[in-house]
């Protein structure tokens, strides 16, 4: 399906639509600008209706079981308060107002046409990306991920139904990445491309983007917890709850718990002691045998992989019900087996920066557990090492109003500055 002009069209209309798209986009850009207030009101109204469960029955048709709850993770972003806070934090209190310079006036205009390439691992991501594009007044072309069975299309329909003035600013295409001719055509029309997803997607669109097209890469990231000194029991429980809740499937999910020590036996002892906490957190969320089976298969397979590769001796694998904790003596930040199978490693603070620098460009969140008097020093160290978010234990995946995204303010990148001589 295609979404254009505020309605759903069959894929058979794609060639015709593409042929006339440049003219349509030019008309939208030439027309009256899209006021941020219109977008704020429309997104807020949609967010309210989604949060109230008004469309749950409809959404269930598009989302696999359990994913409806994960949609809830992005819904808080669609409220007027949060969106206004985002505008203020990213653009300053003046928002889009022109700034007077000595001889010129700086005006802030939309970049123009944005192509959004959504990833499939978080329902609602495409909608979120388009919302950022709309807030900055851009015309948006959304390439849907394979996993999106209609959620984005349904949400965009609801959005433009309530605010028909947005209809000319949103298009969505259910195009697989293999349709390079069509994607090249879309990329050729775009002033900027926001690509979410894996290295493959990022590489593909780096190649498709014509020179001069602004590329916003929201690629995959790795996150971890850093623990210094004896932690409070409730902090460890919060961390365990975070691991269980996210299934370690998000960029911000904790993959490795690093301990501020060079002593592997301490890591091993911590892993053993952490297992019952993680087990409690996992079992508290368990809804059936499926998650447990997924967790057990992931953890056990990863263990066997290490054994066959001859890398397991020296490690300590503690298997619990529906989860596991593995202590490894090396210091690298790496992907865990996920699904509630976390890694524990020693990493004294003196080695933190060189180790994390090896993953530069991929670092995201650090959940920091330490004494209050140490907090600022360790925060500064983590920030210097390249981490872009530092949170309390268990809040790694929380969305905070006004926060940046992977070290950037996206709205700024979706705008351009026009200097006009006075």
């Amino acid at each position, binding site marked *: 399906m295609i979404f254009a002009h505020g309605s759903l069209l069959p894929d058979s209309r794609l060639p015709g639509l593409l042929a006339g798209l440049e003219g349509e986009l030019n008309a939208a850009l030439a027309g009256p600008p899209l006021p941020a207030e219109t977008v704020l009101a429309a997104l807020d109204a949609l967010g309210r209706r989604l949060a109230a469960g008004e469309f749950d029955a409809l959404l269930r048709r598009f989302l696999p079981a359990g994913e409806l709850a994960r949609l809830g993770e992005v819904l808080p972003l669609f409220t007027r308060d949060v969106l206004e806070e985002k505008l203020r934090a990213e653009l300053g209190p003046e928002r889009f107002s022109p700034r007077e310079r000595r001889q010129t006036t700086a005006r802030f205009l939309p970049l123009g046409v944005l192509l959004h390439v959504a*990833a*499939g*691992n*978080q329902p609602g991501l495409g909608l979120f990306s388009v919302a950022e594009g709309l807030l900055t007044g851009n015309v948006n072309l959304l390439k849907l991920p394979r*996993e999106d069975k209609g959620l984005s299309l349904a949400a965009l329909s609801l959005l433009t139904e309530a605010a028909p003035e947005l209809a000319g600013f949103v298009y969505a295409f259910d195009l697989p990445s293999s349709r390079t001719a069509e994607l090249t055509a879309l990329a050729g029309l775009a002033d900027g491309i926001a690509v*979410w*997803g*894996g*290295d*493959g997607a990022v590489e593909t669109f780096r190649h498709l983007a014509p020179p001069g097209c602004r590329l916003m890469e929201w*690629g*995959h*990231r*790795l*996150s971890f917890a850093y623990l210094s000194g004896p932690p409070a029991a409730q902090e460890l429980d919060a961390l365990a709850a975070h691991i269980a809740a996210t299934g*370690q*499937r*998000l*960029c911000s*999910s904790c*993959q490795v718990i690093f301990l501020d020590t060079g002593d592997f036996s301490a890591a091993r002892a911590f892993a053993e002691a952490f297992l019952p906490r993680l087990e409690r957190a996992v079992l508290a969320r368990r809804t059936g*045998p*499926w998650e*447990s*089976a*997924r967790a*057990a*298969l*992931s953890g*056990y*397979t990863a263990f*066997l*992989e290490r*054994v*066959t*590769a*001859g890398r*397991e001796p020296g490690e300590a694998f503690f*298997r619990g*019900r*529906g989860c596991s904790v593995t202590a490894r003596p*090396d210091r*690298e930040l*790496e*992907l865990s087996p*996920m*699904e509630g199978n976390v890694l524990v490693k020693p990493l004294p603070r003196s080695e933190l920066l060189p180790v994390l620098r*090896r*993953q530069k460009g*991929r670092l995201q969140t650090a959940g920091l557990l330490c004494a209050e008097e140490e907090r600022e020093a360790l925060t500064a160290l983590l920030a210097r090492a390249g981490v872009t978010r530092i949170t309390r234990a268990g809040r790694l995946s929380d969305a905070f109003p006004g926060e940046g995204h992977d070290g950037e303010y996206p709205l700024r990148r979706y705008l351009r500055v026009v200097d006009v001589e006075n």
Partner: protein
Amino acid sequence: MPSRQALFWHPRPYDLPASDALFLRAAADNCAYHIAHCPGYAAICRRLDFDPKSLRSTEDLARIPVLPTLLFKREALFSMPERRMAMRVTSSGTSGTFSRIGFDWGSLLAEVPMVLRLGARHRLISGVPAHCVVLGYQPHRDNHAGVTRTMYGLTFFSPPLSRTYALQRRGTSYIPDLDGAAHALERLAASPFPTRVIGFPSYLWFGLQQLEALGRTVRLRPGSRIILAGGWKEHGAQEVAKSALYAAAERVLGVPPDHIHELFGAVEHPVFYNACPNHRFHVPIYSRVLIRDPETLAPLPMGEVGLINLISPLMTATPTLSVMTDDLGYLEPGDACGCGIPSPALTIVGRVGMSDIRTCAAGAAELLGKGEMG
């Protein structure tokens, strides 16, 4: 390996107690062979402290290290150089990952009596020539999928007069041609010979619905059969009640339920499972099945749902002696079925869905070579 051939040539395919001793001997020999020839497998047995000499009773089978099929997707585990293998086959990975499994000549030899015996028992083998309509892939030397070879092999259960494929090879890819298959069925209904429809259940269901909607029902010759292989999960179709599928097959093609055969197998466990008349998969003597607790992987009692652990000493090229699929299922006592087959029956509840997980964090590690540096 003589102990393997002794098991596979045993005359009573569903008499588990009579074959227990043969099975244990073959399993112990198989395990020892893999330990001697596959360093990765040997490391696993050493780490889990398992010695095949300790296999004395069927209860001991649970202690054989169980390898998830997921492991074969991530690691190339072989007990034989490729030049000595008869063939290499891949599982049908849904998102680009699949197991690579080698077959030795001895396993192919052992499969002959198994397939003949079970084929005869379930009335799949017939001397009457038949036309075949395959609702699956057209074979090609570049297609190593186990299911493609299985469906091709199934066309030989009666002398094949013709073969029509619903998934046709065009260049390097496959294009679906259900319409061509529908035309073939209409044409073959007028043939003096019966027709055999072999394929994925989801394709059959989809095809039957299309034909019925278009009013193109046919009556295939008496003696025509439908053979379903490959499982539902293959093409993401919604699983439908078997009774609905069977009723549709009779309405649209004129094939009665007792002429519909369902098969089950996996490239990592290529044992020829046939559904009984009550649509249950009874465990044949070449295989033993354990159901494991999804939380602890400990064996579960009969009737409880868990991960499916399939054990067979069939293969020596790949250490698939004891494998765990990512399906959930349960076992029932054979005599509860009522079909007369005494061995326990396996029911598959569904797939855990490991391959559907595409995470953003996982992608980060891809470029880093499985997430490890230095």
